[in-house]
C-alpha cells in the first residue's frame, strides 16, 4: 500500500500530487474537446439517420417552394424526402469519383464546377486586390482624397453584390464577365478599407524614424508604411476571400452555365437532394481552405514583434 507510506502531512507531496492530478485532468479535457466534437458528429448523423428513416415511409413529399416553381406537375414527381446519411455519403463518393469527368456541356463533374467557381472568384478577387491596395494607400495617406472618396465608399459598400447583377448583365452583356464583376465589387471594400486604415495607422514612432533618418518619400512608403500596413492588408484580403466565396454561389445560381452555384441549382431542379447536400458540404470545405490559406499567408508576410 503506497498511500500509507506517505501519510505524513507534507505540503510538498500534496502539491505534487494535486499538480499531477491537474495535469491529468487537463489532458482529459483536451482529449474530450476533440472527442466531444466527434461524438456530436456521430449523434447528429444518427439523428439525421433516424429522421430520414421515418420520412421515407410517409410517401412522396413535395417541397412547397418547388411546387410553386414548376406548378401542378410537382405533385406527380417521384418521392423527394431528405435522403439518408448513407445515401448522401454514397452520392458523395460517386460525385468525387466522377469529379473531373467531362461528357458534354451539361454532364461535367463536380470538380470542374468547383474549378469554374474558383476561377471566377480568383479573377474577380485579384482585380479587387490590384485596385483596392493602391487606392487604399492613396486614401490612407491623403486626408483630402479620403474626405473626397469616403461618401462614395460608404454608400457603395452596403449594397448587396447581387443588386448589381441585372445592371452588370445589361452593361457587360456577358454572364461570365458579370459574375466576375460581382466578385470584384463585393471583395473590394474590405481590402480598401483595411489598407487605408493600415496606411493611416502606422505607428508615430516609425514615422519619426523616417523623419530623423531623412528618408525620401518613396523609401518611406516602400520600407516603412507598406510593411507596417501588411498585417491590415492581409486581414482585409482574408475577409474579402470569404465574401467572394459567399457571393459566387449566389451569382452562379442566377447566371451560371457552370460553377458550384449552378450545380446546386441544377441538382435542385432535378430534385437530386443528395447531390445538393454534398455540394453544400464541399462549399464549406473549400471556403475553409481559402480562409486558412489566406490566414497562413498573412502570418508569413506580416512582421513579428
Amino acid at each position: 500500500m503506497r498511500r500509507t507510506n506517505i501519510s505524513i502531512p507534507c505540503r510538498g507531496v500534496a502539491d505534487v500530487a494535486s499538480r499531477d492530478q491537474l495535469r491529468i485532468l487537463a489532458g482529459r479535457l483536451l482529449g474530450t474537446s476533440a472527442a466531444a466534437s466527434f461524438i456530436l458528429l456521430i449523434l447528429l448523423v444518427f439523428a439525421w439517420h433516424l429522421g430520414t428513416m421515418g420520412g421515407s415511409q410517409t410517401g412522396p413529399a413535395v417541397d412547397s417552394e418547388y411546387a410553386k416553381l414548376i406548378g401542378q406537375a410537382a405533385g406527380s414527381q417521384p418521392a423527394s424526402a431528405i435522403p439518408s446519411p448513407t445515401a448522401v455519403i454514397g452520392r458523395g463518393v460517386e460525385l468525387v469519383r466522377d469529379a473531373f469527368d467531362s461528357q458534354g456541356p451539361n454532364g461535367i463533374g463536380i470538380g470542374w464546377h468547383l474549378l469554374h467557381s474558383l476561377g471566377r472568384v480568383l479573377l474577380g478577387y485579384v482585380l479587387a486586390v490590384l485596385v483596392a491596395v493602391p487606392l487604399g494607400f492613396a486614401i490612407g495617406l491623403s486626408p483630402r482624397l479620403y474626405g473626397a472618396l469616403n461618401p462614395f465608399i460608404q454608400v457603395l459598400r452596403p449594397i448587396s453584390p447581387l443588386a448589381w447583377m441585372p445592371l452588370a448583365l445589361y452593361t457587360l452583356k456577358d454572364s461570365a464577365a458579370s459574375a466576375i464583376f460581382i466578385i470584384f465589387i463585393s471583395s473590394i471594400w474590405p481590402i480598401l478599407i483595411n489598407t487605408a486604415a493600415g496606411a493611416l495607422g502606422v505607428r508615430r514612432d516609425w514615422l519619426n524614424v523616417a523623419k530623423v533618418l531623412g528618408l525620401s518619400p518613396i523609401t518611406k512608403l516602400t520600407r516603412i508604411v507598406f510593411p507596417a500596413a501588411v498585417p491590415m492588408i492581409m486581414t482585409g484580403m482574408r475577409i474579402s476571400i470569404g465574401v467572394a466565396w459567399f457571393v459566387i454561389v449566389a451569382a452562379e445560381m442566377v447566371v451560371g452555365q457552370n460553377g458550384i452555384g449552378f450545380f446546386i441549382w441544377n441538382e435542385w431542379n432535378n430534385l437530386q437532394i443528395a447531390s445538393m447536400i454534398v455540394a453544400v458540404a464541399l462549399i464549406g470545405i473549400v471556403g475553409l481552405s481559402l480562409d486558412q490559406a489566406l490566414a497562413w499567408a498573412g502570418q508569413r508576410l506580416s512582421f513579428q514583434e
Partner: protein
Amino acid sequence: MAFLTLQDISMRFGSRERGFLALDRVSLSVAEGEFVTLIGHSGCGKSTLLNLIAGLMVPSAGRIMCDGRVIDRPGPDRGVVFQNHSLLPWMTCYENVLLGVRQVFGKTLSPAELRDKVEASLSLVHLDHAMAKYPHEISGGMKQRVGIARALAIEPRILLMDEPFGALDALTRASLQDELARIVEATRSTVVMVTHDVDEALLLSDRIVMMTNGPGARIGEIASVALPRPRDRLALATDSEYADCRARLLQFLYLKQRRQAA
C-alpha cells in the same frame, strides 16, 4: 564657441488662449564634444525640448541653431535614439542600421563601403553577432544598442537621446551606460540626453540641466560635473564631488521642484 544654441524657446500646444504652454523661454548652449543631460520630473517638457532640437516639432517662439544653421526640420546632422528603441520589426538589425546609412551616404559611397559602415557601427555596440537577427529575436538591451548604432551610423554632429535606457532593467541599464560612455569617448560625440535618473546623469554628463515643473517649464539650475573621465561607478560612490553634485540634484528635484500630490 557654442555648437548648439537654443534662443528663448517657447512651445505651446493648441491655441494661444486655451493651449498648453510646455516650455517658457528656454535658452541653452551646448559646446562641441559636450555631454549635456536634461533632467526633471515627468511632464516637465524635457522630451519636448529634445524633439524640438531633433526638428520633429517647430517651436512656437525662439529659434534653435545647430552649427550655424537654424533648425526647422529633422536632418542627418542630428542622430536620435528613441526611448522605446523604435526598430522596424520587419528588418534585421543590419537592415535597420543600413536604412539611414544608405539614405545619407548612398550617393557618395559604394555598396561595400556602406556595408562596412553598418558593420562598424554595429560592432561599436558589440552586436556583430546579431546583425542578421530580427528585433523580436533579441533582448531589450540589445535593441536599444541597435538604436544607438543606427543613430551613430549616419555620423551625426550631435546625438540626441530621449531616456534611452528608461525601459531597461537596472543591470542592463548600468552596462549600457558604461558602453555609452565608452562610445562617446571614442567618437567624441556631442550629446544631449533626457533622463530622470540622477546617477545616470552624473555618470555621463559634463553639464546637467535641471528643468522646473511644467506648465511653462524653464531651466532651473545648471550643474557642471567636474568628475574626471573615464568615470568608474564603484569609485564614484565614495567621491565627495560626486556626493555634492548628487545632493544638489536631489535637492532641486525633491525640495524645490517637489511634485504636488496628485
